[in-house]
């Protein structure tokens, strides 16, 4: 019996069409649009001007404040303009447009692929390096990694957890990376262990990736204190709190952070980026993106430079077919439908999913039948059937006391609802409003 979290969860069809496809390097595009806001927190501030010549890996925007991230150029060329571009949120955000002429890496970036096991930096230097390299959580939340590693005073990390779960249907980016770079990921884990001052690391992988589990177990046996946990295939197993519960049995308190229970968790993609930053001096300028969907000819895992337009990736995987209903950035459960295909790839882009018309369409909402399925599947133990009407009626006090802020927007409730009620839509809207109230209260 595999380990898992105990509260709620659903099991949507896995549809891992691109599983087993190797990570192909995607050609450097002619123009990239590098968004200044690719992370949680304040947008970075551009430090290059129009016309400036930049090299691959050169810093082009600096993080503003503590919760932010640096942004580097992903190509070599000239900054053609700094302008707003529509991003995955559907709104226009500032981006640096660079026209690529070559692919010449900046100063002392090591581009060889040799495995470098020796960790030369100390803990503080590692955290600093990660900050400089603009590394954020690549699982999708894009939380700046250096902030996670700076454990607050009075708290102590006991374990490092590495998230190789990839519970979203369709996506295989993390899976492909684990098969491709197990040695590098192990060194990345050692680096993070050193930075956090912990001796134990646990890697969680869903049981539908037996090849990755076997490979990671083989590599982990060379290191002490690194353990691979095969986990039950259940969505949202890859949710940070769910993963922590499954592996350690510890429960992150409501409103708390994983470090409150002595755990810090990173996605495998992030761990690999940490390896490259610390050992190879390479900032975060590319990532693995799955391009998939039932009517895409060649589902693939690409290593993509940040800022590459999504349309190019779709073209490379076989193009857009007639009956495509939605283009989704991310997975089918938590991803965002894109309004246009010319959206640049950002640090948080784990996949591009093309849904067919019938898959993408939403059924007409019917009245609630009080079956309670949404309550049963909520991994956070909330009551979505109740939160939705409360949100519709703007009962913000009540929403707060019903712990709406614990919702992680996994969408299990909307997925399971037999009446096709848009539970998550309203819960999210209520969460936004309550969040605003809480923030304004804190300011006072």
């Amino acid at each position, binding site marked *: 019996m595999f380990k898992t979290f105990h509260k709620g969860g659903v099991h949507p069809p896995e549809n891992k069409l691109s599983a087993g496809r190797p990570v192909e390097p995607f050609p450097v595009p002619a123009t990239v649009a590098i968004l200044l806001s690719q992370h949680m927190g304040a947008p970075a501030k551009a430090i290059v001007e129009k016309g400036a010549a930049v090299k691959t890996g050169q810093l082009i925007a600096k993080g503003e404040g503590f919760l932010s991230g640096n942004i580097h150029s992903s190509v070599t060329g000239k900054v053609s303009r700094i302008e*707003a571009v*529509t991003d995955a*949120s*559907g*709104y*226009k955000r500032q981006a640096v447009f660079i026209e690529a002429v070559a692919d010449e890496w900046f100063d002392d970036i090591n581009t060889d692929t040799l495995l470098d096991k020796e960790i030369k930096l100390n803990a503080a230097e590692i955290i600093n390096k990660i900050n400089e390299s603009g590394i954020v959580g690549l699982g999708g939340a894009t939380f700046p990694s250096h902030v996670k590693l700076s454990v607050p005073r009075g708290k102590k990390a006991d374990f490092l957890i590495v998230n190789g779960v990839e519970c979203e249907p369709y996506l295989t980016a993390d899976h492909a990376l684990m098969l491709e770079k197990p040695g590098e990921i192990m060194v990345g884990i050692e680096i993070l262990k050193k930075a956090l001052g912990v001796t134990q690391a646990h890697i969680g992988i869903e049981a539908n990736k037996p090849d990755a589990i076997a490979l990671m177990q083989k590599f982990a046996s060379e290191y002490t204190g690194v353990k691979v946990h095969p986990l039950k295939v259940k969505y949202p197993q890859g949710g940070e709190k769910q993963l922590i519960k499954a592996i350690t049995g510890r429960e992150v308190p409501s409103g708390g952070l994983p470090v409150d229970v002595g755990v810090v968790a990173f996605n495998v993609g992030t761990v690999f980026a940490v390896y490259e930053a610390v050992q190879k001096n390479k900032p975060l300028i590319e990532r693995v993106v799955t391009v998939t969907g039932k009517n895409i000819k060649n589902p693939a895992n690409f290593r993509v430079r940040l800022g590459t337009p999504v349309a190019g990736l779709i073209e490379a995987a076989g193009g857009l077919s007639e009956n495509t209903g939605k283009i989704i950035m991310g997975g089918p459960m938590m991803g*965002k*439908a894109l*309004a*246009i295909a010319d959206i640049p790839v950002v640090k948080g882009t784990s996949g591009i999913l093309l849904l067919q018309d019938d898959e*993408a*369409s*939403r059924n007409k*909402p019917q009245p609630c039948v009080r079956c309670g399925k949404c309550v049963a599947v909520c991994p956070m133990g909330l009551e979505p059937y109740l939160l939705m009407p409360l949100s519709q009626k703007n009962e913000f006090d009540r929403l707060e006391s019903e712990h709406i802020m614990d919702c992680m927007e996994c969408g299990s409730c909307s997925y399971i609802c037999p009446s096709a009620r*848009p539970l998550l*839509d*309203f819960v*999210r*809207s209520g969460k*936004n409003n309550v969040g605003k109230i809480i923030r304004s209260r804190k300011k006072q």
Partner: protein
Amino acid sequence: MVTTIIYTILSLSLLGAVAAVVLYFVAQRFKVFEDPRIDQVEAELPAANCGGCGFAGCRNLAETLVKSESFDGLFCPVGGNTVMARIAEVLGRQAVTQDAKIAVLKCNGTCEYRPRTSIYDGTASCAIASALYSGETGCNYGCHGFGDCVEACLFDAMYIDETTGLPVISDEKCTACGACVKACPRNLIELRKKWKGNKKIYVACSNEDKGGIARKSCSVACIGCSKCVKVCTFDAITLENNLAYIDSDKCRLCRKCAPECPTNSIIEIGFPQKKEKIPETAGNNPLTVNKD
């Protein structure tokens, strides 16, 4: 048998009398004085409980009106000057008058002017659609048309026009309570000074993009060319973030600005048709004219 009934009646009467005496003294002891004028003021208020005054309901406004020394910042937009005058009479104070206001929609992006670029099949709510993306058209600022404002209106003064996809505000029914202003996630509704004959002149656009981008997404978008600003003799028009704004307190309805607008984003409503200057396509746009 009879005696039992008599005893019962007597004992119950006695009990009632004792309770009455106790209750009388308790009531005297715990009596809360309430200004009788609160009831009088409340009776004058429209009992709409719309919250337009900023209070939870009419009773709360009445209490505050009676307790406060002056009428500063206290006004019932629904009742308007007449109701406030009557309240002033009740309270023996000098009445304050305010210009009547009317809600207008600062977007004229009808289906015709603002072509669709994507299809939204999610929940029909402006707030939710707005949180998910910029909308079905290329405009990041325009009306979604799902009618959060219509739902918020307690006075039945709004409806969504099927052909334009935009809300229509009834001049007669609108009380300027401001519920729609709060309901709109894009802040498209503004309360403006109400002129006689419901004359209106305003920039029916909220797009802050640069001219070219705005024009591309909507043919009647304000492109921030500042022609109207230059022609205005009353300094009523300001340009901020590529968007012109006509201050309804300073505007004198001279109508110089509207013909200047190259994209017809300045709307004139309720004026007699100008004969010579404006060709049919310019200026007056019948689509947002109220039909009541």
